[in-house]
C-alpha cells in the first residue's frame, strides 16, 4: 500500500510517498531532507504533534503555552482538557513549566510569552 503525506516538519511541505506492508514502512520517497523521512516513518507508526494553546492565569487572563516536545496525536484532546484546567501563577516567563509531564507523555507544557 502507498500512503501519501505532506511533511509538516518545515514550511516547504514536501509531498511524501510511503510504501507500507502490513503496517511496516518499506520505503519513503519525496523528502528533501532526512527529517522528512523520519516524519514519514513516525507518521505511519506513531503520529506525534506539538500542541500550542493558551492557559488561564491567576488574574483571569490567558497566556500562550505549548508542549515542549511532541505528544501522541491521539492524546491531543485529552491534553487540551488538562491544559484548560491549569491556572498559571503570574509573573511567568517564556519556558516556565505550566504542567509537568502532561498525561505521562514526557512532554512539559511551558509558557511561550512573558507576562507580569
Amino acid at each position: 500500500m502507498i500512503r501519501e503525506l505532506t511533511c509538516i516538519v518545515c514550511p516547504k511541505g514536501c509531498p511524501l510517498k510511503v510504501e507500507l506492508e502490513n503496517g511496516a514502512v518499506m520505503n519513503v520517497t519525496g523528502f528533501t531532507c532526512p527529517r522528512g523521512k523520519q516524519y514519514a516513518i513516525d507518521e505511519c507508526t506513531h503520529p506525534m504533534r506539538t500542541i500550542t494553546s493558551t492557559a488561564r492565569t491567576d488574574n483571569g487572563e490567558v497566556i500562550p503555552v505549548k508542549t515542549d516536545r511532541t505528544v501522541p496525536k491521539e492524546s491531543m484532546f485529552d491534553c487540551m482538557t488538562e491544559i484548560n484546567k491549569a491556572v498559571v501563577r503570574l509573573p511567568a516567563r517564556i519556558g516556565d513549566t505550566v504542567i509537568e509531564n502532561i498525561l505521562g507523555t514526557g512532554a512539559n507544557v511551558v509558557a511561550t510569552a512573558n507576562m507580569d
Partner: protein
Amino acid sequence: MKQIDLVIIGGGPAGMSAAVAAYESGVRNLLILERDAHLGGILQQCIHNGFGLHRFGEELTGPEYAWRYEKQVWELNIPYMLNTMVLDISPDKVVTATNSEEGIFQIQAKAVILAMGCRERAKGALNIAGTRPAGIYSAGTAQKYVNLKGYMPGKNVVILGSGDIGLIMARRMTLEGAKVHAVCELMPYSGGLARNIEQCLNDFNIPLKLSHTVVEIHGKERLEGVTIAKVDERRRPIAETREYIPCDTLLLSVGLIPENELSKTASVPLDRVTGGAVVDQDRQTEVEGIFACGNVLHVHDLVDYVSEEAEIAGKSAAAYIAGENAEKVDVALHTDGKIRYTVPQRITQKKAVTVFFRVADVYRNVTVKVKDGDNVVYSRKKPKVAPGEMESITLKPETFANAGALSFELEVQ
C-alpha cells in the same frame, strides 16, 4: 523639532529587525514608533509554532519569535515609543506622531523605514447575499479573541478562504471544542501552506472545499447558517450545488493587504499588484531616504523572510545615512503576468541582488527566465510554482550592468 537619524514606523518583526540591523551597521540615533502597547506586532497573537526554522534553526511560536528580537532591542538599548500613533510622514521626512504623554509631536528624520505590516481584507469588500448578523469575523479578529482574550467567538464554524490564518484558526477552534464544518476556497487551490492543510484540516477531518464559496448568509441578530455552493471555472456559483450549513460563526480568511495609508502621506508611489511601495534592491522607495520592509511592502509567507528583508532595509538605511553608495545603474524589472510581481521592482546599484517574485497560478514544469531584450541572462527550471509560495533568484551584477530593463518570464511546458 527633534532630529533623529532613523525613524522606524512599526515595532513588529519588520521594525525590530530593521532597527537591530541599522544599529549593528552603526546607526545610534534611532527610534521605533509603535502604535500598540507592546513590541512584537501581530506575532503576539500567533501562538502556533512554525516560526524561526529558517532564521534560528528551531521551531518557535509567534511570541517566542518576537521575544528573540525584543531582547535584542532591549540589550542594544534601542529607543522605542509605545502607544504612539504616526499621523503623517512628509516627503522630506518630517514624522508627525501622537501619544497621550507628549500630545502631537514632530521629528525630522534623515531616513525613515516603513514597517507598518498588513491588514486583513475587509469583510465589507465581500458581496455575499443575505443578512449581516453577529458572528462574522475576520480570521485574525477571531485569533485575537481566542488567543489574547481567551474568548471563543462560537461553537459551529464555517471558514471562507483558505489563507494560513483561516487554517490555523480551524485547528485552534477545534482544539478548544468548536466544530469546524468546512473551509470553502473560491479558487481550485489553497492559498495556505501545504503543511497547514495537513496539520490544521486533515488532522481533524475538516473538509477543504476547493472551488466553493459562501453565497448566502442567514440569521437576524445572530448568524444561523450559511449557504455554500460550488463555482464553475469562471467562479460563478452553480445553483444546483447549493448546500445549507447551520453555524453560529463565519470566519473570513480572504487575504491580506499591505497597510500603506501612511506611505501615501509621504507620496511614496505604490505598486498596484503588491499594494506596497515600489522599491529598489535596498528596499528604498521612490522617495529618497524612505525605505519599506516586511508586510507593508508585500505580504510574506513566513516571518523569517520578513526579518531577512527588514535587515536589508536596516543596513541600507544606515548606508544611506552614512552616504555610502555602490556604482549606480537604473534597471526596471518587468513581469509577464504569469509572474505577478517582483520585489524589488527596480535595480539602482551595481551589486548582486536577490529578486523575490510571486506567480499568478499553479504551474508545473516551468522555466523561470530573465531576459534583457531577447537575450536570456538567467534561466532556471522548477517542477512546480504556486501563488502561495514566494520564489526568489539571485542575479549577478554582470547580468544587468548594461541593461535598461529586465523582463521576468515564466515558460510553461
